[in-house]
């Protein structure tokens, strides 16, 4: 999978691109933590419009990033998941800690 980031008005938007599973998780984790070190942003939005597949490994990864960001007082949000990803996010209760932005809130 690929990861692209941009900062817009103090918001770091993280585009997750491709498939997020055990195979791709380690590298994704490393890239994200490296990007988060330099905290030139006030909140993070994970944009999932180009994430074509995710399983529970992705849930673990997102919870892990949530915890690290929380310590720095940075909140995280999710936007644009496809149906498959949406189902997993909903069932695992992830939206309780990383709310999903509705379309009107999308940046």
């Amino acid at each position, binding site marked *: 999978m690929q990861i692209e980031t941009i900062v817009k008005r103090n918001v770091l938007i993280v585009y997750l691109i491709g*498939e997020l*599973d*055990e*195979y791709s*998780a380690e590298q994704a*984790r490393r890239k994200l933590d490296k990007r988060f070190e330099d905290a030139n942003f006030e909140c993070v939005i994970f944009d999932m419009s180009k994430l074509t*597949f995710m*399983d*529970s*490994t992705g*849930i*673990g*990864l997102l*919870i*892990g990033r949530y915890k690290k960001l929380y310590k720095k007082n940075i909140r995280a949000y999710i936007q644009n998941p496809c*149906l*498959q990803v949406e*189902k*997993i996010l909903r*069932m*695992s209760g992830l939206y309780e800690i990383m709310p999903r932005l509705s379309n009107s809130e999308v940046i």
Partner: protein
Amino acid sequence: MNFKNEMILKFKAKSVNESFARSAVAAFLLPLDPTLEELNDIKTAVSEAVTNCIVHAYEKGEEDIELACSIDGDTVHITVSDTGVGISDIEKARQPFFTTKPEDERSGMGFTLMETFMDNLEVLPNQPLGVIVKMSKKIGNKGG
């Protein structure tokens, strides 16, 4: 007419094969003309079962995972088995958020997702070693 078909896939417990296992199952199911959502539910469940063999079953080395898939009319049966360390308390392992690898950021949601995305889930000890996961799902439920 009751369409029947079956296949068995044996592959190494390497995470690079997760995507392969999902795609192979999806390709096998195409003659059933599943909806995209049904296909994704099954791919997710397969991904969870295969990931568990890779992450939990084998201490080291790349041993084999066996994935059997059969179609009986409109029902898909999938069996994923390993010959690894096994699970001592299966009931506990199946509980949501239970994981023995929190330090690896495992979420403990694997079995819960398999259960939710499939119609049926059985987790059994394999003989003499390992775990067998049996799942099934009816395709075209909407119509019926």
